[in-house]
Structure formats: structure tokens, C-alpha cells
């Protein structure tokens, strides 16, 4: 619980952060809320020579959840998302995740951008942001580029964020019929299984569905087979819902730990997919 020696610098703007990344090279890591990186440093699993603190960059924590297109600054804290009534209405799946993540200390310090850039395979946002079909804005020396969430999350602790880039913004269309449900690991409270569902409904019937799952494999993923199977399903019909959600994690090689085997995780994904869809439909 004692990190190795490191230097610490504060970036005053995104451009300054990019400049500092260029200056310090591969030995530098960006520090936002620090709730993923610092525990790894304390265990000496990570030992960056330089931390570039972007936490003080102004305006980067803005949340605009009032219109049809929602934009969230990368430094928005979990607690701010969890407290946003506008977000609760416009994208309740993300509101669910922000409320059900970590503990008060983590929510008060951790950021959506930092958690996303960490790429933890059991984190909540990778599922939610894929189901929301979010766009990630990455800023580098040569300007910005936009990536879809499903292209951003690439594997276990791997994202498309370049070593000299800063994740600045996440944007997605309002999704009032959405939900995120999670089977908590009893120790870490990360997702053993987490499923995000984003629906469009016509009457009591699902018109379209985007389903994304975390906690199972090396990275969160979209379950396109289940998305198709859900079309035309009435979520009130429990049997039909269960049938549509069956095999939601079939295509993924599941991980195992001392709490849950791969087979159990895979089976639970079906149950939690149905719960997520039912919850989204009820909104």
C-alpha cells in the first residue's frame, strides 16, 4: 500500500495535458479521480514515473442532459451523474450505474472518463455506454477524433485511447427507456454480471433494443443476437422475455474467480439481461 516514487504535475488545460504527455512520454499517466490508478500504484502493480493531474482542468466536468443529445465531460464525477435529475429522465441506465458504483468516497472522487479509460472488464460504464451507443471524443496533438463506444473498449484494461491523447467528452442520444442492473461481487462490488438495456417501445412491444453486458469476458460487449430476438417481444410476457434473453453471453469466453465460475456467470447474464429489459420497459 506504499507506491513507488513518482513525479506529479498539474495540467491547466487539455492542450497543456497533451503537451505534458508529449514531454514525459510513455512513463506518464493521466490522473483524473485516481480511484482506479492509485490503488494499483499502492499495490505497485502500476508505477508511472509521472502523474499528470487533469482533475483541475476547468469546464471538463460539465453535464448537459436536458436535450435530445446528452454530453458529459470526461471529468464528471460519479456522484454528479448520480445526483442529476435530468440524467435520471433522459438516460436512466447511466444514472443507475452511477448510483450503483463503488461507495460514497469513490463516487465523490471518481470520474466517468477516468473509469472508462481504465478499461476494467468488470466496470459498469463500458456496458452502459455501449448500450447507449455513445460517442467518445479523444483529443490529441493533431485535434480531436470521435469513436463509438464499441470501438473504444478493446479488451481487458485496453481502450483505443492513444498514449498522447486525452478523453474529453462522451455524448449519446437520450434514451428514456433504459436501465442498468448489476450482480454485485460481495467484496469488490464490481459487476459479476452487469447488463444495460436501451429500448424503443411501441405500445407494450419492443421495437428495438440495444443490450450490452459487462463482467463476463475480457471486455464489455453488445449482445446483437439478443437485440434481434427482443424485437416484437412484450416485456410483460416473462416467458417470451426469458427466451429472447437466453444465451446473451454465449459467444463470450467467461472469466471465473473465487466467487463465481464461468458457467454461473454465463447463466446469470441471461437472468440479468431479462431484468434489465423489464426495468427499462417499465420506465
Amino acid at each position, binding site marked *: 500500500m506504499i*507506491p513507488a516514487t513518482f513525479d506529479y504535475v498539474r495540467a491547466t488545460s487539455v492542450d497543456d495535458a497533451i503537451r505534458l504527455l508529449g514531454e514525459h512520454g510513455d512513463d506518464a499517466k493521466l490522473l483524473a479521480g485516481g480511484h482506479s490508478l492509485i490503488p494499483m500504484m499502492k499495490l505497485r502493480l502500476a508505477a508511472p514515473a509521472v502523474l499528470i493531474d487533469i482533475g483541475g482542468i476547468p469546464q471538463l466536468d460539465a453535464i448537459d442532459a436536458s436535450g435530445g443529445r446528452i454530453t458529459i465531460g470526461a471529468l464528471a464525477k460519479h456522484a454528479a451523474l448520480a445526483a442529476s435529475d435530468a440524467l435520471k429522465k433522459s438516460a436512466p441506465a447511466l444514472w443507475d450505474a452511477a448510483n450503483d458504483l463503488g461507495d460514497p468516497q469513490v463516487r465523490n472522487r471518481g470520474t466517468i472518463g477516468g473509469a472508462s479509460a481504465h478499461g476494467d472488464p468488470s466496470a459498469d460504464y463500458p456496458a452502459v455506454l455501449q448500450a447507449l451507443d455513445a460517442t467518445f471524443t479523444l483529443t490529441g496533438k493533431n485535434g480531436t477524433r470521435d469513436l463509438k463506444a464499441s470501438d473504444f473498449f478493446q479488451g481487458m484494461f485496453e481502450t483505443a485511447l492513444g498514449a498522447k491523447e486525452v478523453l474529453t467528452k462522451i455524448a449519446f442520444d437520450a434514451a428514456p427507456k433504459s436501465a442498468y442492473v448489476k450482480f454485485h*461481487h460481495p467484496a*469488490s*462490488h464490481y459487476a459479476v454480471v452487469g447488463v444495460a438495456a436501451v429500448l424503443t417501445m411501441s405500445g407494450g412491444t419492443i421495437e428495438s433494443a440495444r443490450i450490452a453486458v459487462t463482467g463476463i469476458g475480457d471486455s464489455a460487449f453488445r449482445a446483437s443476437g439478443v437485440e434481434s430476438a427482443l424485437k416484437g417481444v412484450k416485456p410483460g410476457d416473462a416467458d417470451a422475455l426469458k427466451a429472447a434473453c437466453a444465451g446473451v453471453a454465449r459467444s463470450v469466453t467467461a472469466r471465473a*474467480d*473465487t466467487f*463465481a465460475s464461468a458457467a454461473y456467470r454465463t447463466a446469470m447474464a441471461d437472468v440479468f439481461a431479462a431484468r434489465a429489459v423489464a426495468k427499462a420497459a417499465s420506465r
Partner: protein
Amino acid sequence: MAFTTMVGARIRRREDPRLITGRATYVDDVRQVNTCYAAFVRSPHGHAKITSIDVAAAKADPHVAGVWTGDDIHHAHNLKSSLPVAHKMGALGLKTPPHYILALDEVRFVGEAVAVVIADSPYTARDAAEKIVVEYEQLGVVVDPLKAEAGPPFVHEELGTNVAFSMPFKAGDPDAAFAAADVTIKQRIVNQRVAPVPIEPRSMVANWDTGGQQLTIYSATQIPHLLRTQLAVVLQLPENKIRVIAPEVGGGFGAKLNVYAEEALISWVAMQLGRPVKYIETRSECFQAMIHGRDQIDDIEVAATKDGTITALRLKITANLGAYHQLLTPVIPTLTLLMAHGCYRFENIEAEVVGVFTNTMSTDAYRGAGRPEATFFIERAIDMVALKLGLDPVAVRRKNFIANASFPHTTATGLTYDSGDYETTMDKALKAVDYDGLRKQQADLRKQGRFLGIGVSTYVEVCGMGPSAAMPAAGWDSATIRVEPTGSITVLTGVSPHGQGEETTFAQIVADELGVPIDNVTVVHGDTDRVQYGVGTFGSRGTAVGGSALKLAIETIQAKAVKIAAHQWEANPDDVEYKDGKIGVKGDPSKSMTTPEAGFLAFMGDNLPPGLEPGLDATRRFEPPNFVFPFGTHVCVVEVDAQTGEIKIVKYLAVDDCGRLLNPMIVEGQVHGGIAQGLSQALFEEVIYDDNGQLLTGTLMDYAIPHAEQVPHYELDHTVTGTTVNPLGIKGIGEAGTIGSTPAVANAVIDALAPFGVVHIDMPLRPEKLWLAMQPKNGSTK
């Protein structure tokens, strides 16, 4: 006690303001000039020979004050390099292999200390420790106690076995009882290894006063005096040259009832350097190298008649001791055998307790310490007998309870239960939860495919430890009362509270008995230079034994104050007495004196009865004639989700009986914490080593201790059955919640799964295990 305005009242804990406002002093808050810091190199292997240690780079580090290895320590002539184990098991041929302060030539568990580095900060110490290169040659590893019992590989090759002791026991005629039984049950019950996880890990800072030749060590310990004695032996120092201070201690749970290698080593290093040396272990080190609890395999067979009467128990306890004996390691499983009866009166027992070494951290006392294991298997056994006979588990308990009339009751295992009223406690609990209504609700919900489970646990436990004759080392405790010249009263207690609230309860007793405001009473503990020798706080003994010593000291103070008052009044001392906390003359209300007034006269010394020494203070020691046996009934109601195996606790109610309640709020706090830890063992906790001896649950990301939302609301009630074992009529309550709750939760979960033919599932009751048990089996519908 006639006058009880304080005792029995819900007085807020006087400790809490400093604790909850961050003004308490824990070991890490002790800041001394010129302090240096320790970091350890620990074994990454379960079992290996140390082939070389290269400390050159660490020693060359300008931040480093010193580096020591096992070789250095072993050859230091002023240090006895093996640690103590307290036991009276010599007749059993207990094997006690050496337990070196730093590993010598061989490491036997992951986390065993190999070298220590002292540097000018915790950071530079850790950096320097990483420069030490240790080469190992891996040896055979055994972590499973049953495999270890069969051995090889052997943890200590020179012993030629992993069996540290084997203790047979027989009472009555179990063979005849089994032959005559209508039914028998047989079950292996695994009581898994758990980690104590106090918020404050092991913490210590030692300083050697080079002028005064005096060692002072602040340590987060439950036993400052016993630690001092053991340090005197290990460091080969006169005991009166050692001062041990246990300042605020952030949780012990038995894990700080020990003498750790680090405590001896940090002290010795401070003596070498003549500087304060501080060591605050990391959470990872705490998981690796602080003692673990439980880890027994209990193979039971029970014989019963068809009306549910238990007639005999066969039992084999296989206790995983870990790689070495810590202070009480081998003693713990023997307590399990003693309590194998639970609340029940059967007379025929055949048992064997086997303690085995494995390549794991030592097990030792953890809240309950041997008793939870017994309560768990006997309470599970009752439910299994009921299931087999188609009887209600409550009816089976009622059938087998030791009757009120037979107390004091001597069990077949040789304990004498002081007092009990098991049926009243159970009936109170059953009424409070509407047991019959719950059973109806359970039947209705099952028809809807919902699975409610009702678990009852009726426990009795042995605590108030204990008579010295029955303890590994000294079971008495002490108290000093000083009436200061200006009337405040100082209590020096030999017990060492670290959350149990005796600064409050002891002051309540003194306030009532000596007739002073509670704020005039200060309770001092945890400093061997201030407090007379005491044994410490563990085994739910602090108030039962330490409070009883206090009661004796009060009586001595009162007797002297009476003589002083009688002399002033020229009255016959036989006519003078304490009444409602004041001294007066029988039948003469005009005469009255307070304890502080008597104390002032005793201090002035110029008007005392001839021959009476000045001063008003007293030191007394209480030697308990027996243990005490609190008991109670815990009821847990759960619903298990058939789709996932997730458990929801619907209700938790406990009715406990710890005799007289000195402060009901503190009793409830102890019960709350106890239930949380017992419930957590049932549902969440398990220390797991893989077959190579690697610790898989080495962080709080893997090892689950419950957050607030993972424990239910507790409904608590009590009955009050006295005891004559001590002058206060009280029993311990520190561990009862842990002991009673684990089987209540497990019984509830397993009861929920009865429709699936489930008889037993081992803890922790992870959802996956329940989900698997609820899956349709091939070839049968349930």
C-alpha cells in the same frame, strides 16, 4: 447493589466522542522524533528453501539504517529467536517446532517474514526492501488439512508428520447408543478459514531509551502485560525494563491476542539502533500474516430416537493449524470439543481432535475461538435430525434442552454450565417472530415458487475466561481504585478494552457503589507502567473477570471508608455502612459522609483510627471459580432467489441472555457487531489458498467483509438469568452474537432449499452453490 441509577442505564459510551471526532490516539498517531520505519521482505512461496539472500544493494541505500535476515537474528546472542506458544497440552505430546522471528533457511507460508529493512520513511523502506534479492528452491506444499494429516509433504520435515497433536475423548457408551438408535445422521461440516480484518492492522512503534536502558513499545494489542512478559523472555530483558502501551486499538477480534514476530523484531531492532522504529503493516500483509480463524473440518455422526431425542455424538475435528503455532493455536480446537454439547443433555460422546500443520498462516483465536465451530455443527445436526425425522427443528431443540432444574449442569465433556433457561429464551424469540405464522407463510410461498427459509439457532457458549486452572496461562484479572485527594476516582484495570466500552461500564459501577458522579471517574488501561499486571481482554472476559476484580476493590475501599467515617463519628464500625452510595450510621439519618470526603480524611491522615494506614486505594484480583455460559436464540428468515441463488435476509431477531445488563446499549452494540461477523462467515467470507499455497483472497477486492447494506436490521431482546460465578451476576457478550448467528443464517438458507432435497451446504453460502442445488437434477424432478 441496591442503588442503580447508573448500572443498567443506557449511558452513552464515554469513549465515543474522541473516537468519532478523530481525536483518539492509535499507534500510527504516536509521533516521536527521529523515528525510522520498517518494511519486510516476505515469502512469495508456500514452502521453499532459502538458498541465498543478497542484501548488499539495500544496505548501500543512503536512506537505510539497517537490514536484518533470519541468519542475523538467529545468531544475535541477546535474542531468543523462537516465539512462545501457551498451552497445557504437553501430556498429549504436542509438537512445537521452532517458530523463528525471521525465517531461518526455510519458509513455510506465503507472507512469512524473511528480512526486515529499516529506513527513514515508509516509502524508502519499501523501495529498499525491493532491492533485496532472495533465491528460493521450492519444496512440496500442502494446504488441505486432510491431505496434510496423511502427508507427506511435511511442513516441518524433521517432525516426519504434519500431525501436531491428536486428542481422543470418550464419555458414556456411544457404541451402544448408536446401536440402539432409530436414526443416525452423518455429515462432514467444513468450518471455513476466515480473516479477522480489523480496521487497524498490526501496528507498533518501539523505542529504546539508551540512557535509561528501557524499552517502550506501543502496540495494537489486546494483552499488554502478557506481551510484556513474552517480550522479556524473547529479548532476554528484565521485565521491569519493558513498557508496553496499547493506546487506542482499532479492532482486535482475537487477532491481537497474540505475540507476533514483528513485535519482538521491531523491539529488538529499536534496541540495536537506539531510535524509535515504527511498523504499520499494509492490508495485504494483514491478510497474509495476521492470524486467521476457524478452519476446521468437523465430521459428525449423531444418533437419535424417533421422538427426536439425541442420544450420542461421534465427532472428528480436523483443525488446520497453519505452518506454526501462534500463542494459542493448538488450544482453539480443544474448546470446540468442550462445547460439542451445545444446549443439549446427551451423555454419550466419542471424539478425536487432530491438529495438523499446513503451508498456511497460523489459525488462532478469532471472535468465538473454537466455540462457533461447535455451535455450528451441533445446531446444523439438530436441523438434520429434524429433517430426517420429519419433525420441526424447534421441537427437536425443546426435546433435548438441558432442563432448568439441572443447573449447574456438568456436561459429558466436563464443563459445568453455571445457569441457563434455554426454553424461555427460545419461546420469547419464537413469539416475537411469529414462528408458526412464518412456517405457514413459507408453505404458501413455496406453492408460488418462492423459497423462504427459517433458521433457528439456540446457542450456549463458554466465556468469562476463565479459572486459571483451565487456562493456558492465568485467568484472573485485576483492578485498582484510587480515591484521589480532591475526590476524583481513578480506576486502573488489568483488562485492555479496545471497543468493549469498559471506560463507561466500569465508571457506571463505581459511580453507583461509591456514590460519585460518573464524570468523576476515570478508567485507565493498556499501559504496563501505569496499571498493575492484568491478563487482558479476550474470551468475553473483560467485564465478567475485570469488572469482578473492580467490584472486589470497591468492597475494600468501602470497608476502609466505613472505618474512617465511624472514627469521625465515634461510632462502632459495625453500625456504619454504605447505603445508596453514601456512608451512614444504621438507624441515624443525621450522619452521612461521601466517599471523596472519606478519601480526603484518609489523605490528610491526621484523624484516622489507630493502626489504619493513610490513603484510600485498593488493588484486588478476581480469580473466577468457573467460566460463565451465556446463551440465547437467534432466528433468521431468508428468501432465496431461485433464478440466481441470491439471498435476501427478510428478518433477523436475537434473544440473548448474558445475565445482568450493566449497559443495555453497549450489550446491543456487542451483539450487533457479533452478528455481523457471524452472518458474514455464513454468507461471504473465506480465506482461500490454492494448491501451491498462494493466497487468492489477499485483498478486500477478493475477500468480502460486509458493507452496511449487506447486513440486515437486527431486532434484539433479552432474558436475564443470573450467575453466581462472579459478584456482578454477569456473563460475557462479546462473542455470543458471532457464535449464535452463523448457524441461524446457515439453517435458514438450507431450510429454504429443503424442497430441493438439500440437507447441508458448506459455508460461505455463495449464490452459485445455492443456484446449483436448485437446478433440476437428471432423473428426478427435485
